[in-house]
């Protein structure tokens, strides 16, 4: 465990805050096929406290909160309400204990008004059966809205409200259901500074009235400004519970990343970078990124990292021509490139998308059909499709990438995740691509297949291809990439190379300070 004044275990922390917790989870474990999402995690929540929950992507924060609100059932572990053992089997049980979650995606109905949304599913019946007492709903809604200091007419239809206001309605809805434990998952992600201030004021007010708040955040600034306690999760384990006054942001980052900060590693030697393959200048787009500048040279693997939602995939899609851009220029091998995947593919660009099932593969079609799809023009210049030639080309790729399939005619849906990913990659090898964008290439595939995909990346750059790789796993970026750009909030926050390319630096650049 890390050194310094970090309070490393709960007993210490608990000693400072007297009394029985309002709600407590003890020894929670939860596994999904192939992943241990939570491993013996204990977590407690006290009245009038803001408890910060931090950790990297995939650390288990969301899973833990889903267990708390009854959306997931824990494999093992126990729950205590005011010190009494209880069970939470479903969301209804969680609601009984006053647990409410404000998710990032709201659950509101756009064409109902504010009051109707707050009382959706719990309408107060009117005098006639089947009717709703609209007047009482609106006066009750007004009361709850006043409670959180949100001055707005409850008759306004929801679709007229901004994101911040909708969030307030969501909170009011939770409170109207007697929520005493409020879970907020990155509530400031979509808010402006002013809206954030207002949200913080409301949180302080709720806290004073005795509501317990669990607050998930990636922004170190607010973690320290708002938190009474900070719990760090990493790889499904609880690493520490600390007090903000006794911790520095740097210590917190170290706790989140976990491994010794300067990881030394060996990897295959790389060729000397050649000509510029991709050059992006001042790229901005409506999907939430602006002023992006980056270059990738032949023979180079360049990382694009940052938190989920920082704009990495959006930038990749824009480069590939799949999304519109509003400003800037993209040059591929020195020539400007237009805005369509069709042109990008013709010019030798490849995108291995984030989600292979929805974006990368025609699952019901055969391995062969999928492999030849991007290279149809090259394989059949006359436009006439010759099945025998298609099968032959597919077999070559299957052999080269060692795709485990009994026949090229097998539906891709029947292959394992790793082999499906190889089919996606094989599609681009068959199309003779020279510049590859890999978006989370190792997501959901096992360790062996991961290693194979990394070896393949090495082969690609040795043959003079250029690679831009997006990954949420910092360790992958550090091990595989020659350089990396770190994104934060739609901008490039910095570029890391050589000895600066470390997990800690990636996290530091990627987090709002």
């Amino acid at each position, binding site marked *: 465990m890390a050194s310094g004044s970090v309070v490393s275990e709960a007993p210490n922390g608990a000693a400072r805050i007297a009394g029985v917790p309002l709600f407590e989870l003890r020894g929670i474990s939860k596994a999904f096929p192939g992943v241990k999402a939570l491993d013996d995690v204990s977590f407690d929540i006290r009245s009038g406290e803001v408890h910060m929950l931090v950790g990297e992507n995939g650390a288990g924060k969301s899973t833990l909160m889903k267990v708390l609100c009854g959306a997931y059932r824990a494999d093992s572990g126990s729950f205590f309400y005011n010190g009494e053992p209880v069970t939470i089997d479903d969301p209804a049980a969680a609601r009984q204990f006053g647990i409410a979650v404000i998710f990032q995606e709201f659950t509101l109905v756009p064409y109902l008004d504010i009051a109707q949304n707050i009382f959706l599913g719990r309408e107060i019946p009117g005098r006639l059966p089947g009717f709703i007492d609209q007047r009482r709903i609106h006066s009750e809604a007004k009361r709850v809205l006043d409670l959180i200091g949100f001055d707005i007419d409850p008759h306004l239809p929801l679709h007229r409200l901004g994101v911040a206001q909708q969030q307030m309605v969501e909170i009011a809805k939770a409170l109207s259901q007697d929520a005493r434990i409020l879970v907020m998952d990155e509530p400031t992600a979509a808010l402006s500074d002013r809206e954030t201030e207002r949200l913080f004021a409301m949180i302080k007010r709720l806290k004073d009235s005795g509501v317990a708040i669990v607050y998930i955040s990636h922004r170190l600034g607010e973690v320290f400004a708002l938190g009474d306690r900070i719990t760090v999760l990493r790889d499904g384990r609880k690493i520490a519970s600390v007090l903000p006054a006794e911790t520095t942001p740097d210590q917190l980052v170290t706790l989140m990343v976990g491994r010794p900060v300067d990881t030394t590693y060996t990897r295959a030697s790389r060729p000397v970078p050649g000509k510029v393959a991709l050059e992006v200048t001042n790229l901005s787009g409506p999907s939430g990124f602006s002023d992006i500048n980056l270059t990738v040279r032949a023979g180079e693997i360049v990382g694009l990292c940052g938190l989920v939602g920082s704009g990495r995939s959006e930038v990749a899609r824009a480069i590939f021509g*799949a999304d519109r851009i509003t400003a800037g220029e993209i040059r591929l091998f020195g020539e400007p490139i237009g805005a369509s995947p069709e042109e990008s593919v013709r010019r030798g660009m490849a995108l291995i998308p984030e989600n292979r099932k929805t974006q990368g593969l025609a699952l019901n079609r055969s391995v062969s*059909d999928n492999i030849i799809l991007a290279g149809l023009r090259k394989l059949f210049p006359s436009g006439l*499709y010759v099945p025998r030639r298609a099968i032959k080309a597919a077999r070559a790729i299957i052999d080269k990438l060692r795709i485990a399939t*009994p026949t090229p005619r097998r539906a891709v849906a029947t292959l394992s995740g790793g082999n499906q990913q190889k089919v996606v990659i094989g599609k681009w090898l068959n199309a003779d691509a020279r510049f590859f964008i890999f978006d989370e290439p190792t997501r959901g595939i096992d360790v062996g297949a991961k290693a194979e995909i990394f070896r393949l990346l090495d082969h690609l750059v040795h043959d003079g291809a250029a690679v831009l790789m997006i990954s949420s796993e910092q360790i992958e970026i550090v091990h595989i990439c020659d350089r990396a750009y770190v994104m934060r909030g739609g901008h490039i926050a910095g570029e890391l190379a050589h000895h600066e390319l470390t997990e800690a630096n990636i996290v530091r650049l990627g987090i709002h300070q």
Partner: protein
Amino acid sequence: MSSTPNIAARSRFAPSRDAMQALYRLLAVALLCIALTALSDVFFTTNNILNVLRQTALLFLMASGLTLVILTAGLDLSVGANIALSACLAASVIKATGSPLLGIATGIGCGAAIGFANGILVTALRIPSFIATYGMMWMLTGITYYYMAGDTIHGFPPEFRQLGSGYLLGVPMPVYVMVLFLLIGWFFAQRTIWGQQIYAIGANPVAARLSGVPVERRLVLVYAVSGAMAGLASLIILARINSAQGDIGEELTLPAIAAVLVGGTSLFGGSGSVAGTLIGALFLTLVLNGMNLLQIHSSWQPLVTGVIILLAVWIDNRTRRSDA
């Protein structure tokens, strides 16, 4: 996984799922023919067989272009209304100019233009195909009614009428047209890269686009082809009944969709074939023909058609699931 060479050697000769589906359907057609031959003296006569084939040809021509649309997970509900307008315009042109060729060009051109417009609605305006072609159906019907103003155009030159009611070597002309377009349709779908792209779009439009397939252009093409085939069908109807009225295309769209579905093309896109649609059209025609021969009241026909559609789709779903 390590025993793959053996499996590969064996399954290289195993028939594909699509081939099996076609085989089941041909078997069903054969059984139906045997049953009808046993039940009716009239069924297995040259006249009746040719009659069945002629009706199959018309249904197939309407449904063949539609098959391509459905392969992309789209739908064309304007086929019948397209036929009405194309037939009426073609009829006017033939009447005015006396030239069957100009009439044919008008019918096919009008059909293709309507299909192109559908394609633009679906791609450029991003209107779901179901709604785009449904709206188109109403507009076309309105235009046709306005244009015809309740009139009937009839009496076309005999050389034009050959197209619908003529014979060559004892076989009705529409059957030759059917065979020709079966070959063209098969070639286009199975032996060109556009066909491959259409299947890919139907299976996963996002993946197709991200693989460099010009999805929008292919969709426009597919709707235009569906429209052109409706235009062609309108000419054969026109030549057969020798008259055009505003309501000529009513009640044609749904049987065409039925032929595609019974023929094994999935409404979800990506699987099926033009050849399957021919078998579907043949099967449905045989059933209706058999019911007529057995003097079953015609009010039973829609019910039976509905049962056949549901059965065919249900069986397909089951075989697909067991295969995956």
